[in-house]
Structure formats: structure tokens, C-alpha cells
């Protein structure tokens, strides 16, 4: 808990994830167009933009699920192709069938499949890693529960625990706070901040503009194209928000975001 209130100042240097000219199209519709990005090491980065701006597509293109039309992607200055194991991906909660016949600990252990291989036994060490990851997201009590019986927030935390089990360098999260309760949001942000304090890089698609300043220190704003990128204080400005969201962002809403006192201090 201590690291949430007293985050060590890390001046980002050198990108954890570098994207150059990434273009993805579905048929003849362009989902993202020539996007560049340099997400710094050991920091928390947000990807923001309106609906249909291509935020999730960007993540999917990075992990190779969505084929790209053009562009290069590097992790710590190496091509991503052979370095996928440095990435842990947390998909959107709605992307899977929660009626699937499996339970919580089983899902978390999926994060260890690369480690134990195809036939390797889940030894007590792996089991305890999985339990520890569940504990970090506050779900250790529910380890035996059928996944369908979890609330939305609990499901999201199970997915996060699975990613933690991978012990990666970069964590890519697709709308981790979408449709979760306040307790879960708090729990997730604590875990993410502790990752950052261990020099891991967190990159999340985020939709709640009110919390961007509290949670993140770097931001990529896109609307199919790059709009702006940089440290929160320089980049998350009213002007950039207007050009990202266009008419979709009410001015009053924008003013609230830039009220003299940040909500973070509450």
C-alpha cells in the first residue's frame, strides 16, 4: 500500500514499447492510421481516445492478434516477434465465455503454461505462485470458485492475477476498469502501481478521463491517428483533449478535469 501514496519519481527514459507507423485496417476501413508511440520504461501509460478510435486494435496489433498493414514494433529496442514473453496481456473482460467449465485457480495457472510447458507438472511451487498472484489482487479466498459465479470486478482481478503469474516486463491492459466496482478499481490500481515500483511498465487502454491524472504518468492520445503523446502534465491538456474527442467532449466536462484541485488529493 505504501507505494500508492509515495510513488518514487522515475523520469521515463528509453521506450519499453516503441511503435512506428502502425496501420491496421478492417477491409477498407482504417482502424488506426500511422500511429507512433514510445511508452517509457517503469511507468504507467494510458491510451485514451473516443469510442472507435482504435485503442483496443492498437493493443491487439502489438501482440500480433490483429494483422498490421504497416509499421514496426519494438520492445526494449528489439523486434517484438521473439520477445512476446516479456509481455503480459489482460484482455477485455467481455472477450471470453464466462460460462466455460473452469475455476479461478485454473485460469490463473494459465499464466504459467509457458513456464511449465505442455506436459510439465504443476508443482507446489507453481501452485503457490498462482495463489500468491491471487492474493495480490485480493482474491485468494475465492480460488476454487467457478469463474461464472464471480462478479465483473472479480473476473477482472482474476485476469490480472493471470497476467501477474507470467512475471512479464510489460503489462498491456485493455480497459481494466470497465464495469468494475470501486473496490476492484482500487485493488487493481494498487497492484499496477506496485508493478511500476518494481520497474515494470504498465500500458492500459483507459476510458475514464477523470482518473487519468491520478493513475497514470504518461499518455498516448489517439483518434485513429496520433493526436498527442507525452508526460501527463505536458500532454493531458484541454487543447489536446478537444482535438482528440472533437465535439464529443463537453466543454464543461473538460473544465472539471482541470479544476484547480485535483481529485487525487481527496
Amino acid at each position: 500500500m505504501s507505494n500508492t501514496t509515495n510513488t518514487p519519481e522515475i523520469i521515463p527514459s528509453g521506450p519499453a514499447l516503441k511503435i512506428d507507423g502502425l496501420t491496421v485496417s478492417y477491409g477498407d476501413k482504417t482502424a488506426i492510421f500511422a500511429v507512433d508511440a514510445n511508452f517509457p520504461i517503469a511507468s504507467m501509460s494510458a491510451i485514451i481516445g473516443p469510442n472507435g478510435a482504435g485503442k483496443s486494435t492498437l493493443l491487439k496489433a502489438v501482440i500480433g492478434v490483429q494483422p498490421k498493414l504497416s509499421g514496426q514494433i519494438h520492445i526494449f529496442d528489439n523486434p517484438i516477434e521473439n520477445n512476446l514473453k516479456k509481455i503480459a496481456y489482460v484482455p477485455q473482460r467481455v472477450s471470453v465465455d464466462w460460462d466455460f467449465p473452469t475455476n479461478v485457480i485454473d485460469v490463473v495457472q494459465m499464466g504459467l503454461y509457458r513456464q511449465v510447458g505442455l506436459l510439465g507438472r504443476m508443482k507446489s511451487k507453481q501452485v503457490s505462485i498462482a495463489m500468491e498472484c491471487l492474493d495480490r489482487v485480493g482474491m485468494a479466498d475465492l480460488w476454487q470458485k467457478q469463474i461464472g459465479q464471480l462478479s465483473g470486478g472479480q473476473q477482472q482481478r482474476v485476469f490480472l492475477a493471470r497476467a501477474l503469474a507470467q512475471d512479464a516486463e510489460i503489462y498491456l491492459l485493455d480497459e481494466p476498469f470497465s464495469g468494475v466496482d470501486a473496490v476492484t478499481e482500487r485493488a487493481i490500481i494498487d497492484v499496477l502501481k506496485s508493478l511500476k515500483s518494481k520497474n515494470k511498465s504498465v500500458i492500459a487502454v483507459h476510458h475514464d478521463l477523470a482518473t487519468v491524472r491520478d493513475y497514470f504518468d504518461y499518455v498516448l492520445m489517439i483518434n485513429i491517428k496520433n493526436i498527442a503523446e507525452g508526460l501527463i502534465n505536458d500532454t493531458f491538456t484541454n487543447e489536446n483533449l478537444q482535438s482528440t474527442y472533437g465535439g464529443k467532449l463537453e466543454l464543461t466536462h473538460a473544465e472539471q478535469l482541470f479544476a484547480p484541485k485535483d481529485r487525487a488529493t481527496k
Partner: protein
Amino acid sequence: MITEFIQFSLTPILIGILAGISCAVPGNFLILKRQALIGDAISHVVLPGIVIAFIFTGVISTIPMLLGAAGAALVAVILIEVIKRLGKIEPGAAMGVVFTGMFALGVLILEQTDTSKVHLDVEHALMGNLESLIWLKAQGWQSLFDLDVLKTLPDELFRIIFVCGFILSLTVIFWRWLKIVTFDEEYARTIGIHSSIINFSLVIITAIAAVAAFESVGSIIVIAMFICPPAAARLMTNKLGIQVIWSIVFAILAAIFGYIIAGYGPLWFGSENSVSAAGMIAVVSGIILLLTCMYGPCRESVGQTKD
């Protein structure tokens, strides 16, 4: 009595059980992936496969026909995938186009060839001939230990033993991959599992099971065994491993009771002729599914399903 049972009923029941298991095990994953009907599609293209194999070889013999059926299944699977991707057509419709088209082609070619000379008919391919797979040399239980007599067991039995063993061992070996690709395909790719290879292999396994089962139980009945036992199993448990075991149990029950009812049921009603065993096995599997739909302990959804 025992001897008669071993001669006339043991092998058909064994073949029915093994064919059922071979179909039911991959069926578990197909149902979870919302691809239950791929088994349907593959079963229909078996006919054009054997017809074309006959045209090429000119003889009715098992191995070329099995190869033809497997080839047709492979062609169908590839065509479905191509049409799905190229035409951006939803999977069900793409399957419908491919298997009905290939089936029509099969029937057309069949009608062109001289069927009076060869005993190659559609009904056989559809209905199978489980009842004719008998073991006349058997003299009783002791025959099970007599190598010379064992050699006279129908070849179909050895083939289905091999296929069933193959499918079961692949399922065990690739269990983790199958499970994660079925649950969360995108995530599976990020941890270095080639989802598309697993998906394609599953379909190939399905094709092998369908082809191996069709020669004894008939191609249409295969669909029932792909879907009913695993669907019923899905309503019994919330754990994948236990679900697969349940599906095997249901496949065994369907085969045994289906065969016995088909063979002996009509006698109880005073008729001398038995009815189609393959058809009855499908019916029994349907009754099992119906019962689990009404009383299965896990028949209701516990979580929100995708889409």
C-alpha cells in the same frame, strides 16, 4: 448364448463404443468453441470422398475409401475456411454452402457411375452396417486369448481401436493447449501458443474421427455422437476434465443400450427383425441429452456467455 453374444454382438458393441468415444471427446471442445456443427459438415462430405476414391481406383476396398473420405474432409475444412475469410461469411453459412455443394457433387457422380456392378450406395454411407461386423470364429470367452481366432476379428475393430487411442492420447498430451485456446484464444497467442494450429488440428481430429466412425456406424449418426454425449456432459459438471469423462461415459452408455435395444427390442414386441443399431444409438444419445436437459445438476448457465 454367451457364444452367440460374442459372435454377433460383442464386436459391434465394442466398435460402437470406440466410435462414440472418438467422436465425443473432440466434440467437447467443438461445443465450447461454438463449432458443434463442423462435425455435421464433415459427416456429409464423406460420401463424395468415397465416391471419388472409387472413381480413381475402380475398386471397392476400404483403405482407398477411407483415404478418399479423409481427403474430402480436408478439402471441405479448407474450403470452409477460405470461404469464411475471402467472402466474410459467417461460419454456419460457409459450412452450409460447402457441405451441401460437395454432397450434391457426390450424388451426381454416384449416379453417373454404374452402380449395378458395384455395391456402393448412399444408404450404406449414411446408415452404416454395424450389425454385419461379426466374429464368427469366436467360441466363447476363451477366444479372447486365442491369437488365431483374434486375427479373424473384423478389421474395422482394429482401425477404430487405433483411431480412438490416437485421439485420446492427443487429447491428454495437448490438454493444456486445447483448454486455453478454447477458453481464450487471443490470450493463448500472447503466451506463445499457435491458436490457429490448435484450431486446425482439432478440426483434422474431428475429420479423422468422423471418417473412422462412418464405415461402421454411418456418417449421419456420427453427428449425434459428436454432439449429444458432450452436450449432456456439459450439463453435469463445471470442470472441463470431468466433462470429458462424462462425455465418454455417455458415449459408452448410448452404444451399449442403443445396440441392445435395436437388436433385442423388436423381439420383445414380437417382431423377428431388428432395427438399425446405428440409428438406435443416436436415439439413445438423444434421450440421455434430453434427461440431462431436464435434470442435469449444471444445466443452467453460471456466467454471462460471450455474444
